[in-house]
């Protein structure tokens, strides 16, 4: 299927076209970029939710429970479930469909598993692109779920409008050691498996941490839920909805939307720059020579990096990488 055909299919709600379009975006192929260009103006309708938290927190089960609740509210749901690729083989086993068995035959749900593929800083961008395609396809809610709380995963989840941080009772140490940054990106916090002992302690700990975090007008609610039974899930979805309404109406909402846009542009540009610079470096042969020198202990890695950057700059022409000055910025 060609790009135009795929765009038409996605907009018409054709699931096969949607699936194929996602593959193109995921692969960052020329067709994928063309699709994103064509589909982006048709996005912005969906409510996007990022769900993150450490492995074993019960995120998949929670995504299932949230989806069921959204379906009861009459909304269609697209899900992007991201799992890590093996650092050795680059392969992956993606098992999220198992946790959402009952949802996979619901025509109002579309679940796509995604491997992180160890992209050069591009995971969050690729995943955001996939979310956009689902948005354009007309899903009312698009959930993106990531495993683990590494930099990449958190970034993926925060690319959504509302980020939900999932923890568990007894995860006290984990909460204590949580980077303030993670606290600040979450708009909703939920202690899952709240039927286990220690749920209230976890809530107290989160509250204490929030008290010292640098927050803006939105105060993240801290909720308890048992994803397995669905307990507390309607309240969670209510809280997500409240944040969504806040974004739509409040003056800060506009600021946050602009910030999200800025983050996306910068991240994509950074990834592209990174990739292109390395391609140039490898292509010019400068890298290979420097590798020999550093490996032979004839030159230190830092100097080598500077030389490499110099070589890239020369290839590209100094102007392209110069600090923006009023003159060249205007050009």
């Amino acid at each position, binding site marked *: 299927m060609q790009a135009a055909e795929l765009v038409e299919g996605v907009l018409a709600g054709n*699931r*096969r076209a949607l*699936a*194929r379009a*996602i*593959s*193109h975006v*995921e*692969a*960052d*192929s020329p*067709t994928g970029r063309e699709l994103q260009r064509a589909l982006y103006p048709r996005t912005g309708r969906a409510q996007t939710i990022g769900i993150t938290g450490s492995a074993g927190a019960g995120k998949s089960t929670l995504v299932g429970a949230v989806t069921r609740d959204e379906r009861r509210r009459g909304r269609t749901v697209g899900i992007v479930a991201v799992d890590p*690729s*093996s650092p*050795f*083989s*680059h*392969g*992956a*086993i*993606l*098992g999220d*469909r*198992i946790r959402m*068995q009952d949802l*996979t*035959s619901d025509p109002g749900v*579309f*679940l*796509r*598993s995604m*491997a992180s*593929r160890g*992209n*050069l800083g*591009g995971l969050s961008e*690729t995943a955001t692109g996939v979310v956009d395609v689902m948005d354009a396809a007309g899903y009312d809610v698009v959930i993106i779920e990531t495993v683990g709380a590494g930099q990449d995963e958190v970034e993926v989840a925060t690319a959504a409008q509302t980020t939900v941080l999932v923890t568990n009772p007894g995860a006290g140490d984990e909460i204590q050691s949580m980077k303030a940054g993670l606290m600040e990106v979450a708009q909703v916090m939920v202690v899952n498996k709240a039927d286990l002992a220690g749920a209230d302690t976890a809530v107290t700990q989160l509250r204490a941490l929030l008290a010292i975090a640098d927050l803006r007008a939105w105060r993240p609610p801290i909720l308890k839920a048992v994803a397995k039974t669905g307990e507390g899930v309607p309240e969670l979805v209510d809280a997500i909805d409240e944040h969504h309404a806040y974004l739509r109406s409040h003056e800060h909402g506009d600021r946050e939307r602009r910030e999200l846009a800025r983050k996306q542009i910068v991240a994509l540009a950074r990834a592209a720059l990174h*990739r292109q610079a390395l391609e140039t470096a490898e292509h010019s042969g400068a890298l290979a020579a420097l590798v020999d020198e550093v490996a032979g202990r004839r030159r230190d890695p830092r100097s080598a990096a500077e030389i490499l950057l110099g070589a890239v700059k020369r290839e590209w022409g100094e102007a392209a990488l110069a600090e923006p000055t009023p003159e060249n910025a205007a050009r």
Partner: protein
Amino acid sequence: MANQRPIRVLIAKPGLDGHDRGAKVVARALRDAGMEVIYTGIRQTPGMIAEAALQEDVQVVGLSILSGAHLELFPRVIEELKSRGVDDVLLFCGGIIPHEDIGTIETLGFKGVFGPGTTTTDIIEFVRAHAPVRA
């Protein structure tokens, strides 16, 4: 690099039987060969399998069955795939499959039928050789 798309494979067990040793071994082996394996595990209906193949846009579908219900369930999977327009995937299967059934299964569109004692190397090579290339 970003635009090298790994082969995506769906591994599923149709029917009720829970013997998933083989399916797990194959799923792990394909992952270790650099593929992305969508593992749906046991108790999958033909409809669930076809829907997963569609949504995940896999190039390959591998089914494992040890209960002997293959001649009943495989045609239903094919039917469900066809009704969704998924007509360009490589199909293979494994399990306890009597020799005399292999012809029938191949006629259904399965390119590979792997019985007990098959090495994962054989399956990896098979998938690499036959997986349809996607742009």
